[in-house]
């Protein structure tokens, strides 16, 4: 437990320090992109958020497969916690994307393959969290969620392929920002630092969410114990 708390504190401190470094690099150190102007600085947050979102959903896949295979609660908890934290990152990724699209492309939204796929990805994991809330508690709900956690992740490349083909038939009107391959070295360095910083933040949030999950389980157990004990007690008192 003490080790856990130490690790959690270390994660928090590291991610906070890296975040400050990222802010410094993004706002003061890195040069402004010539064509896209100052709003291009959204890119560093946006891409890191996207990367961490995918990482989180990959953890959901790992937790789901692990749960169906081993039937251990800890795999299920990993999938649940990671899906929720991943949703936070993906939601912010979509919001920063929209905020960048407006100054860069002149529109808030366009049906570009990456945008479309991201939105559908978001919808899949929104459904995942809804399922977790609406499905029966215990192993049944966990199995349902695991199935969706696997299908959802495996489906993403197929969605992307279909959207790319669809858009090739109807070419997009706007041209996206420069591909990552042509990124200047200094910009790539900032992106790397930002990604590492967000990955540490993700680890911290995941730890917090897992701790909350353990408390939820503890509270569930306590409720069951209290209910059975106090119910018997009240029955005795009433008699």
């Amino acid at each position, binding site marked *: 437990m003490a080790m856990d708390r130490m690790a959690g504190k270390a994660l928090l401190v590291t991610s906070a320090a890296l975040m400050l470094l990222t802010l410094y690099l993004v706002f003061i150190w890195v040069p402004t992109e010539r064509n896209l102007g100052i709003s291009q600085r959204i890119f560093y947050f946006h891409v890191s958020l996207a990367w961490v979102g995918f990482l989180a959903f990959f953890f959901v896949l790992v937790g789901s497969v692990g749960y169906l295979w081993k039937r251990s609660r800890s795999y299920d908890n990993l999938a649940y916690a990671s899906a929720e934290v991943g949703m936070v990152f993906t939601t912010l990724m979509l919001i920063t994307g929209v905020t960048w699209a407006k100054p860069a492309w002149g529109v808030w939204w366009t049906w570009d393959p990456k945008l479309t796929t991201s939105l559908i990805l978001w919808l899949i994991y929104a459904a995942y969290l809804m399922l977790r809330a609406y*499905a029966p508690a215990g192993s049944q709900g966990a199995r349902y969620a695991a199935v969706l956690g696997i299908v959802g992740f*495996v489906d993403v490349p197929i969605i992307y392929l279909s959207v790319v083909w*669809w858009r090739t038939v109807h070419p997009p009107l706007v041209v996206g920002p420069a591909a990552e391959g042509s990124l200047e070295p200094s910009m790539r360095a900032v992106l790397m630092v930002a990604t590492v910083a967000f990955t540490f933040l993700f680890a911290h949030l995941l730890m917090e969410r897992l701790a909350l999950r353990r408390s939820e389980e503890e509270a569930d157990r306590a409720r069951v114990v209290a209910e059975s004990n106090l119910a018997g007690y009240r029955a005795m008192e009433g008699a």
Partner: protein
Amino acid sequence: MTGFWSAIAAIMWKDILTEARSKEVVTAVLAFAILTLVILNFAVNKDTSLTPVVAPGVLWVSFTFAGALGLTRTFALEKERGSVEGLLLTPAGRDAIFAGKMLGGLAFMLAAEAALLPFFAVLFDVSPFRPLLLLVVVLATVGFVAVGTLFSAIAVNTRSREIMLPMLFLPIVVPVVIAAVAATGGALEGKPWGEIAKWVQLIAVFDLLALVFSAFAFEHVIQE
């Protein structure tokens, strides 16, 4: 092996017979889907030159709604009567139950689509009797129903299941719907096989993955 196939046939036949007797779901679903067709036709068909662009999309929107509504019922009757346990107690294996349920749903949805196509043809003034179009519709419906049956078994055990099923499986079937819309458009315009082949291939690959995965995952979903 014969036991496996006869179990599938029995489950499928039971569902078809139940529906054929009551006609409860078919009527509601058809009325709703026709309404969708009419409203969308009214909304987008002001300019008939747009028909080739919008017609395939409208057709698949109505198919999707019909399918989502119909598949909600796949396990709902069993749930209401508490006969899922009965189904599990029969010697039929889980994969036979899945296949039977899926084929029942497929028959239902294909019937609904067959009834909708003439309405579509009249409203949008297109000829639906093209072998390529029929191939696309049947193939895409297989993948759609395979995923839908799996999630129907999940949604039936959740609260507010009528909302949960579309929420769960519509994002997953996006690729097959996109491919179906594209291939339907090509087929309606009378394009040669070569131009829509890649879409049909995408649908076929999706079908294969959906069938294999759904059959596999169904065992984890339905066990008590």
